[in-house]
């Protein structure tokens, strides 16, 4: 089944809770209501004609005014895929976890929590995964500012060219 | 030996009426120092160099070749470096046990040299319970390893130590059982006695004296690999699992002692099998001079032992490591019953042919040669297939 057909089907079933089905090139996607996400996902997985048995990718994108979580679903039995999105407020984004539907969501959601700062409600083990536990902020947010030092290790390096110029100046003075 | 010292004393070499015990003690010290520093350590070191070279060749590498001719002084460099390294004792470690452990391991490696039958005359002490002494003192290693694992206060060390203890103690049983057939045939526990009961010709070795002995020799060889923590039974120091096993926390000189004991143990295991099954130093009588004969015997003994050491290197270069439960089941489900059968079988054999059966010797020898030929043919087949010219022209 083509993605657009799948979105039509979802619209037929869930109506207004599918907020937008954009036919944007190259990959079309459907934006869904965060409150209905679990229900829609469960339907996608359990409906025999859709049978999305694999959550192949889940990622978060920070669009300055909102945060989106993108779900790339795939069905190994029907060889088709779909893209779902939920739009969340940028301050304290929260959405239900899909870990109960696809196990692979566990780690991907931890990564999104770590890097984009989306809070997944009901997640079994929501910890930082890539960054150290005591890291400030969420690096993939657009307004993330790199800390100047971490445990006494400075994160900026003096440019060798600047240093070379300084040495030249010293040499001239002599 | 004692007679010779007595004669020296009688000749007045140490002044008039020297205290006999002191002279004996001095000789013991000097001799053990000579054996320790002059034979055991260099030998362990050289074996370590040979192993690295052989291993490298198996892996199509070169191996250490910059220190001395062909890298033959590599072991000296390693040793000297370790002596100069900082000696770290972790804060949390049990310092006394931690310091003691390497010496216990080395003790288990040095004591067997006392009964090592290099030739008909070159043996420090031909004990009448030689083989018993041999198995008893080599088992000291396990105490040291367990101490090291426990005292390091590192969980990887602990697992390594416990694994080693379980492994060495388990394999003591088939190894001990595999010694019995020889004792039954030879009727003695003395190392020299066992060697004298065999002939110089291969078909007079205990290896080929009957089928049970043949199997027992293989069981003994594999058990010796396991007791020496060699691949495929190198679980106590499994690098990919346990970092460096029981020796993880050791550095400098203390680690060096473990290091040398490991390689020295290869020689000891080889010497045991050579003595028991491969005819020891027995050589054809080519000269009446005892000096020539002893040198020849020394040479033959060392060649046999080194061949066994080489095989264990070869095995190390070829086989992966078994898992601990597989190792245990191999020991208890296969080796222990087989060793028992061997023992009983040999007993029956000896009861039927108390003087041995020469025909069995020839037949078994022919069988052994056939197996060796088949094996070599297979190796040659793979050598031809692997198309070595590609490696000679790396850019194709």
């Amino acid at each position, binding site marked *: 089944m083509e993605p657009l057909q799948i979105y039509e089907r979802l619209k037929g079933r869930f109506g207004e809770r599918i907020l937008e089905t954009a036919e944007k090139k190259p990959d079309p996607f459907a934006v869904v209501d965060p409150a209905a996400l679990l229900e829609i996902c469960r339907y996608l997985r359990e409906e025999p004609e859709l049978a999305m048995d694999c959550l192949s990718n889940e990622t978060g994108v920070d669009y300055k005014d909102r945060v989106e979580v993108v779900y790339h679903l795939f069905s190994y039995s029907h060889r088709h895929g779909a893209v779902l999105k939920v739009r969340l407020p940028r301050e304290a984004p929260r959405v239900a976890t899909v870990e109960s539907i696809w196990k*692979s969501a566990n780690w991907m959601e931890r990564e999104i929590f770590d890097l984009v700062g989306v809070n997944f409600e009901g997640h079994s083990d929501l910890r930082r995964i890539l960054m150290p536990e005591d890291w400030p902020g969420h690096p993939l947010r657009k307004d993330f500012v790199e800390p100047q030092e971490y445990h006494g290790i400075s994160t900026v390096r003096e440019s060798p060219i600047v240093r070379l110029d300084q040495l030249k100046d010293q040499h001239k003075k002599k | 030996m004692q007679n010779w010292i007595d004669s020296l004393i009688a000749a007045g070499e140490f002044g008039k009426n020297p205290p006999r015990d002191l002279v004996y003690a001095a000789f013991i010290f000097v001799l053990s120092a000579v054996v320790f520093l002059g034979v055991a350590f260099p030998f362990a070191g050289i074996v370590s160099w040979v192993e690295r070279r052989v291993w490298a060749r198996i892996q199509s590498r070169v191996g250490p070749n910059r220190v001395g001719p062909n890298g033959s002084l590599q072991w000296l460099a390693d040793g000297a470096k370790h002596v100069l390294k900082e000696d770290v004792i972790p804060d949390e470690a049990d310092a006394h046990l931690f310091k003691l452990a390497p010496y216990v391991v080395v003790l288990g490696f040095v004591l067997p040299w006392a009964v090592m039958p290099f030739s008909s005359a070159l043996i420090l002490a031909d004990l009448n319970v030689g083989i018993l002494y041999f198995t008893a003192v080599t088992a000291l290693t396990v105490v040291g390893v367990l101490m090291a694992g426990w005292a390091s206060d590192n969980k990887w060390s602990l697992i390594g130590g416990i694994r080693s203890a379980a492994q060495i103690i388990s394999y003591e049983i088939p190894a001990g059982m595999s010694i019995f057939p020889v004792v039954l045939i030879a009727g003695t526990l003395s190392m020299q006695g066992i060697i004298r009961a065999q002939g110089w010709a291969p078909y007079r070795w205990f290896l080929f004296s009957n089928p049970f002995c043949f199997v027992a020799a293989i069981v003994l060889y594999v058990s010796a690999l396991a007791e020496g923590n060699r*691949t495929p039974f190198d679980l106590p120091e499994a690098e990919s699992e346990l970092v460096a096993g029981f020796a993880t926390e050791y550095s400098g000189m203390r680690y060096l002692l473990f290091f040398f004991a490991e390689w020295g143990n290869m020689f000891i295991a080889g010497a045991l099998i050579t003595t028991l099954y491969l005819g020891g130093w027995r050589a054809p009588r080519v000269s009446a001079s005892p000096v020539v004969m002893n040198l020849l015997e020394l040479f033959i003994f060392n060649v046999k032992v080194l061949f066994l050491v080489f095989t264990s290197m070869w095995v190390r270069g070829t086989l992966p490591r078994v*898992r601990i439960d597989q190792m245990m089941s191999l020991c208890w489900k296969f080796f222990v019953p087989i060793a028992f059968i061997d023992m009983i079988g040999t007993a029956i054999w000896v009861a039927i042919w108390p003087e041995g059966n020469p025909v069995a010797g020839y037949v078994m020898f022919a069988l052994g040669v056939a197996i060796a030929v088949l094996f070599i043919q297979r190796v040659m087949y793979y050598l031809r297939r692997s198309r070595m010219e590609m490696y000679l022209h790396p850019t194709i």
Partner: protein
Amino acid sequence: MSDTAEPTLRTEEMTLNMGPQHPSTHGVLRFVIRADGEVMREAVPDVGYLHRSIEKIAEKVGYHGFMPYTDRVDYVCAMFTNQGWAMACEKLANIEVPRRGEYCRVIATEFNRLASHLLTVGLMGMDIGAMTPFLHALREREMINDLIEELCGARLTFNYMRIGGVAWDLPPGWREKALAYLDHLDPILEEYNALFSYNKICIQRLANVAPISAAEAIDYNLVGPNLRACGVKWDVRKEMPYSVYPEFDFDVPTGRGEWGTIGDSMDRYMMRIYEMSESSKILRQALTRIPDGPVLAKVVRNLRPPAGECQVRVESARGDQGWYVVSDGTGYPWRVHVRTGSFAAMGIIQKLSRGLMIADLVVLIASLDVIAPEIDR
């Protein structure tokens, strides 16, 4: 150990820390192991020791400039990450790659797959204690490295592909060398099997260790050889063909459980061996059929793809690699995300580790073929 038996001996659970510096973790992974003697209750992976923020860097360096960074996403098979990024950009900007360029890509990636799988099977040898197979694999890898070096000038981080094709054409005489190498490889694989794969100890160590069922594998999003080992016949090259793969004739091997259960470590290991001979097949066809023509399409220097987003899937050596790229119409991508096989494979370790022995954990890691940079990026 077992819950049913009456506890006669008081045992204590032991917490072990494995890594980040540990010889068998293939880079910098860390496991916190709760073990009862040799048997693990659970091994909790701790990753992120190689998180190099490649996804954030993509937002700073632009489309062409990001190509060298993709090498570092998975340095063992960098050609695939190159290809994934190039394909994603081409899909966004609607660029057609010349046919010879596609062939060059296939040749480069398949050679890289050989190199990567050789390393994987070699590391498996090292992890279960046999150094020789590992070094023999490195020996073969060196020759592939020579070939690839002649092709693109680098041994490891290739930076060979460009958006719209590849950077350089095949050098003169390279085809013959490559074909000669393939002739050499097939008997080597047999030798390798004789030395290591069919070794009794190797089979005992690998067979029946940590089997994964097909449903579980899909649920945990395992991809590539790990998924095929569970019996799922799924290869992106066949099922969602990209590049010129439909023109080649090759098989997709799946796990059959010849030595134990379907989807055990032995199956995962053998999958790599089988795939090497399949790659060799593809390479032979590609090298003989390669058409003439340009290798690189004309692409503007300051590439500004129209706003939009896409996901591209590439069958890398570690499985289906998904490149998700969001463009906002400027010269810099808004967001880049790589879905990698190792990340998913790492997620399943915690579940599989329950009840395994510590020695089996090493086998499990090696058989899943996880590579630290692919997990952490």
